[in-house]
């Protein structure tokens, strides 16, 4: 076993992960055997190099091996990869991107009649596939981002907005609908639309939103990895720092709400 720096080991493991993903579902090869061969190849190629072997030296060997996504001939790929390949490889190699944007545009146009939601969901999946394909090839989206990212952004914004307000609306409905809010704050007598009522309602809104956002930040931090993966490449820089910011905003908002409700009278 070759002694490598932690960075080089991580790089090798990532490469092997990519390789496993690329070979998964192949009908005529044994991925485990290929992995064993690649490990042996790397060990022999790096034999004699002073330990620990660094990421740069390992990178040269992996570069020579090439991207595993291109190793299989077309017939060896699972059907869904062959289909993706066919759609994506046109004269300009942009076909999947065009299809993704076309479905997105169709979704926006047909949104008023309801069916648009289905097209937008399809556009999101196609855009994610296009973005992954480009990443697998080690390329950047470049100008294709204008065609691929709108669907991902739109779904991300809708999901985020939905998550941010999902619990606030029912909380407001219960608090105001039952009248509990006014009895709790002693403002039953205040007429609707009066400054007193506005203070109580705005205070309650801020407090419920703030409290929910603190809870949401905790959930968000717990599911950060799958959430980030789902919306890549838009969420590439998303980190726990953003969950902490949401929690902080929540705490400030909840505190302001409490002040409005119970201190300012």
């Amino acid at each position, binding site marked *: 076993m070759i002694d490598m720096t932690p960075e080089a080991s991580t790089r090798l493991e990532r490469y092997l992960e990519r390789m496993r993903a690329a070979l998964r579902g192949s009908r005529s090869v044994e991925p485990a*055997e*290929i992995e064993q061969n*690649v490990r042996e190849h790397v060990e022999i190629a790096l034999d004699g190099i002073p330990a620990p072997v660094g990421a740069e030296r390992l990178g040269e060997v992996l570069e020579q091996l090439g991207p595993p996504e291109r190793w299989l001939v077309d017939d*060896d790929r699972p059907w869904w990869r062959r289909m993706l390949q066919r759609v994506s490889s046109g004269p300009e190699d942009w076909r999947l991107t065009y299809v993704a944007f076309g479905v997105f545009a169709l979704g926006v146009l047909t949104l008023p009649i309801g069916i648009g939601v289905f097209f937008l969901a399809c556009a999101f999946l196609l855009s994610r596939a296009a973005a992954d394909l480009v990443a697998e090839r080690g390329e950047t989206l470049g100008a294709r981002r204008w065609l691929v990212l709108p669907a991902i952004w739109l779904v991300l914004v809708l999901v985020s907005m939905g998550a941010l307000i999902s619990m606030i609306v029912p909380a407001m409905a219960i608090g105001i609908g039952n009248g509990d809010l006014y009895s709790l704050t002693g403002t039953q007598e205040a007429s609707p639309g009066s400054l007193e009522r506005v203070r109580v309602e705005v205070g309650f809104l801020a407090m419920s939103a703030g409290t929910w956002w603190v809870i949401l930040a905790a959930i968000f931090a717990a599911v950060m990895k799958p959430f980030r993966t789902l919306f890549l490449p838009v969420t590439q820089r998303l980190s726990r720092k953003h969950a902490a910011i949401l929690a902080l905003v929540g705490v400030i908002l909840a505190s302001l709400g409490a002040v409005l409700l119970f201190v300012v009278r």
Partner: protein
Amino acid sequence: MTDTFYINWTTQLRKGLLELAILNSLGSGPLYGYELVRRLGDVDSLVITEGTVYPILSRLKNERYIESYIEESTEGPPRKYYRLTPRGREELQRMNDHWQQLHGALVTLRKEKKR
């Protein structure tokens, strides 16, 4: 002929020929993976990405044209050697014959063009 057309054509040709090249390399005796990759790499433009060789080895093994065995090495870890099976030798003969036939036909076509 555009660059894209030429690149696609050479890629397809290479893919098709790589199996024949691997079988021919093993025809002269057992080789371990790395050694085989190096040998093929010496042939200009045949192997662009070395990793391509390993799935082909796996497929040829599944087809029972080649078989593998482990041998200890004095220069490092034990190595997995590949060698042709009798079935593989027969297939190689058929493939080489077909290649000769194709090559001959192409040469004839080129000669006719020159006349």
